[in-house]
């Protein structure tokens, strides 16, 4: 998977928010609020470029004290949400 081009993570009044700014993302028409974990995963996904649930779960385990199984479940929930709203492909 990869993050769809044109979506950016910004700090809006202290909250982490994804918005569509690029060509092709202009019609997104909403602000997607991320919690701390999701914002961390978004940044990691951007760094990794081509990412998978496994590669993000690895990244999560590096940063947070969490069991691999739990990390993978969290990643799947968050990435599932991203797929649903169409910010990853």
């Amino acid at each position, binding site marked *: 998977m990869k993050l769809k081009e044109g979506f950016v993570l*910004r*700090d*809006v*009044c202290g*909250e982490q928010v994804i918005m569509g*700014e690029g*060509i092709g993302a*202009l019609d997104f028409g909403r*602000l997607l609020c991320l919690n701390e974990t999701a914002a961390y995963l978004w940044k990691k996904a951007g760094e990794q470029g081509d990412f998978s649930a496994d590669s993000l779960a690895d990244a999560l385990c590096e940063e947070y004290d969490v069991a691999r199984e739990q990390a993978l479940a969290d990643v799947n929930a968050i990435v599932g949400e991203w797929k649903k709203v169409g910010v990853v492909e």
Partner: protein
Amino acid sequence: MTARSYKVAGHVFTLESDLDIDEGLQNYAPFAVPAGSDAPAVFTLEIVAKAPQAEYTEEARQDEESQQIICGRTAGNQSVFEFRLAHKPAGTLVCEEGYRKSTLYLTDFAQRFGINNALMVLYALATAPLGTALFHSAVVEHDGYGYMFLGKSGTGKSTHARLWLENIANTTLLNDDNPVVRVLPEGIRVYGSPWSGKTPCYKDESYPLGGIVLLEQAPFNKIRALRGIESYAAILTSISGKRWEKSIADALHITENAIARDARVWHMQCLPDNDAARLCHETIKVR
């Protein structure tokens, strides 16, 4: 070549042209300043009556109320904006890097429309890094403060502004369509501009921002204060910009965050009636 300079919300810009366009520039008269006398211009626009030489590739387009703006880029990486009225070309704007120097190529159709749109686009983009935002909004002045009414096309921004004029004492119209907002060290200020939609209201005046109200039509009147990200979302779509150009998006985001943090913002569901204006005024007036 005749040069004309104007100062809108403290930012000077210059028009250069050999064309006889004075009649189409009456809305700019209150903003005229002697050419070259003031602060350096944030941008210079040359206006010519010939077809542009360069071809461009379309990136995005906006289509509202039978007015189209087609945005693109030339092979030489210049930004291009073509303005069409009811799908008929009025002019093509070709911009150098940073929007400081541009050329508008007019057709012989709807020249005034072409000039106004080119200047609004240039103003929005050239002043974006200067804590400045060109809004789509109606704005009234009341007791020394500016109150802005936002909403989608057809929501009733102008109608709500008129209801304030009719029902609230000491109220005047500052601008009916495109006011300018600046984030300044002393606070947020709202300014009149040469662009006011269908209402000729071109005032070189400014006031501290009293509040912003996002309007939505409803079969009742109800108003609710917004905070933080809600305020940001409320103002976002009312600000002109070219979000797919990163430097513009970054600059506007800083301005929008400052407004969302410091301005008083409300969401109002309302009827187009006198009570709506009274409820709004009673809730948001600066005390």
